[in-house]
């Protein structure tokens, strides 16, 4: 029997794993003063991983490891974006972690392992690897939240995150075991084949679907499984909140696509999960946007804003068409871009011993630093979906997909709640431009943060003016992979 499998599609993952172990060991020989070496090695690893992903990319899906691993255009695109997002996160987080004693080897090792988990999830073609990738990511994230162990808030957030995350994993696993019971396979391509041919135990598939959708809802943070999001966002150290809120959403989108669009993409089943996602999407839009208005803590407000964005993402997916999936992918890319930028600004204003997380801390930012205030203005406009920023286009394409399948009333609801949501985004703009500053400390940042944050903020408007290349890429990626 032949067991030799091509390894080249998995080169990025293998490289990342080897380098993570090397960094873990090398860090032991580096003194606290030279910790910057670990940081440099981590960034170099992520950059190398992105390059490898780019050069091993291919348009046709390639399967390896006995069909458990798939390398297709969607996987390549999402993995590349994940690496870039993690690089950006680490740049933004450097000053914050240094000031809070978190600039340690473990932080970087955990970040790398979390990235590995995301890449495994994105490339999973087997429910077993999908679940293992998810656990790898979640375990690393729980530990990162708790890394500031003297902070009561962080420990509480880690505890809540851990327990609810374990519950969600249980739901997901139970659903997967039901799928196995009904079809006798865990491989996603085979599941797709079997569910398309029609299984006798259709009821069991639907039953499995309920648990899988609930598990995915937990992981995405969609209503009614959103309880952990605000507490974890607020309690975790801001650098870790940035991590949780951004890059893992690529992986979450990937597993939603793999499980729902690929494995359970048969027409009879699409009808079933369409309704479940519809309820979750509409509730997320409503509760996310309405509750965000009441918040005075910016991190908590962004948590509720995330919930409402996840509602939009689900709207894109539930349309069940290639355009809809493409719009969903476009939305998740734009969401991560906006989250990186806005948390970047929060980290920028945060100094040693001072957390800029209250809305009042943003009063009069324009007088302290007009450029950063302008960047924040762009990001907030984009989150609210005001043209010509890219957030407008992302929302528009999702709504188009929903209207195409005749759910025009859902589109109306989404627009209404977006309008309500615009209030709390614009309130920040008002605070920044029309109020007197309370805090007059000058805004200091290293050259790397300044450059990257500027690029990040301007990307929101550049992509808004020319969204076509990214949109085409997203649709092509989805078309090639489904």
């Amino acid at each position, binding site marked *: 029997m032949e067991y030799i499998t091509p390894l080249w599609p998995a080169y990025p993952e293998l490289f990342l794993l080897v380098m993570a172990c090397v960094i873990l060991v090398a860090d032991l020989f580096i003194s606290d003063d030279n910790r910057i070496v670990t940081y440099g090695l981590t960034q170099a690893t992520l950059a190398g991983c992105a390059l490898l992903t780019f050069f091993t990319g291919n348009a046709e899906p390639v399967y390896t490891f006995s069909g*458990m691993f798939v390398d297709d255009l969607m996987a390549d695109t999402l993995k590349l974006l994940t690496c870039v997002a993690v690089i950006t996160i680490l740049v933004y987080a450097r000053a914050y972690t240094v000031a809070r004693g978190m600039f340690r080897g473990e932080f970087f090792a955990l970040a790398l392992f979390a990235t590995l988990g995301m890449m495994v999830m994105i490339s999973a073609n087997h429910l*077993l690897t999908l679940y*293992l990738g998810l656990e790898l990511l979640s375990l690393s994230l729980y530990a990162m939240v708790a*890394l500031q162990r003297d902070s009561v808030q962080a420990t509480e957030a880690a505890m809540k995150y851990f327990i609810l995350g374990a519950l969600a994993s249980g739901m997901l696993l139970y659903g997967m075991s039901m799928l196995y019971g009904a079809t006798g396979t865990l491989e996603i391509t085979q599941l797709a084949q079997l569910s398309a041919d029609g299984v006798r135990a259709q009821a069991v598939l639907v039953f499995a679907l309920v648990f899988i959708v609930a598990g995915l809802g937990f992981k995405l943070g969609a209503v009614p499984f959103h309880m952990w999001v605000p507490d974890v966002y607020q309690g975790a150290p801001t650098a870790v909140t940035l991590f949780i809120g951004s890059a893992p959403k690529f992986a979450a989108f990937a597993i939603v696509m793999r499980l729902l669009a690929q494995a359970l993409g048969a027409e009879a089943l699409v009808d079933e999960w369409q309704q479940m996602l519809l309820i979750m999407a509409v509730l997320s839009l409503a509760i996310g946007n309405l509750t965000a208005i009441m918040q005075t803590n910016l991190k908590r407000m962004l948590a509720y804003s995330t919930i409402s964005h996840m509602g939009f993402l689900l709207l894109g997916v539930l349309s069940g068409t290639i355009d809809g999936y493409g719009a969903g992918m476009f939305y998740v890319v734009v969401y991560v871009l906006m989250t990186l930028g806005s948390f970047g600004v929060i980290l920028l204003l945060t100094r040693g011993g001072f957390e800029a997380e209250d809305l009042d801390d943003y009063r009069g930012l324009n007088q302290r630093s007009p450029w950063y205030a302008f960047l924040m203005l762009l990001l907030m406009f984009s989150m609210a979906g005001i043209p010509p920023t890219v957030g407008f286009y992302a929302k528009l394409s999702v709504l188009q997909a929903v209207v195409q399948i005749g759910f025009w009333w859902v589109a109306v609801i989404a627009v209404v709640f977006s309008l309500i949501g615009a209030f709390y985004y614009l309130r920040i703009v008002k605070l920044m431009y029309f109020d007197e500053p309370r805090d007059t400390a000058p805004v200091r940042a290293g050259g790397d943060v300044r450059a990257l944050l500027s690029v990040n903020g301007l990307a929101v408007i550049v992509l808004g003016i020319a969204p076509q290349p990214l949109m085409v890429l997203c649709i092509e990626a989805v078309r090639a992979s489904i």
Partner: protein
Amino acid sequence: MTFQEFIFWFFAAVLVFAALRVITARNPVHAALFLVLAFCTSAGIWIQLEAEFLGIALILVYVGAVMVLFLFVVMMLDINLTRLREGFWSYLPVGAMVALLLVAEMALVLAGPYFGLAEAPRPESAPAGYSNTKELGRLLYTDYVYPFELAAVILLVAIVAAIALTLRRRKHAKYIDPAQQVAVRREDRVRIVSMPAEKKEGGA
């Protein structure tokens, strides 16, 4: 009822009873011991399914190693049970209602014709000389090598996380550095002072 069926029902009944006692026992040590019983009976069921390796591994690894550690931890921690049970009765009605609904709904699907004996015909018995362990090992290192390695990475992350979260470098701890101890020189410890001999007063 054949003897085999009798064994199955016996093990199954003991398993369910033990599992129920795990969550209802008041004393955590008793709960842990019931968990040991549950593991032993499920190992028996696995052996009946001709999965000898898994059955033995369950006993050796879980009962022999994991549960012993577990018992140690339970005995060392002073768990305040009354605090844990706080609010139990006030949440019980809601929790019980949700649980009952879930059980009823699940029963409607699972009691259907999908998982009966007719759906899962008895697989053919393995031929003599067939090694379960060898087959598992072959699968684990060929078809399943990727998830196997991933599981290893997850364990590594667990180690890193546990150390990162619990290791404290204490500055004032009275620890001993063997390297320093070995490298000690005579001059560090003994000071030889030369002084003139003194006469004993009133000596003989």
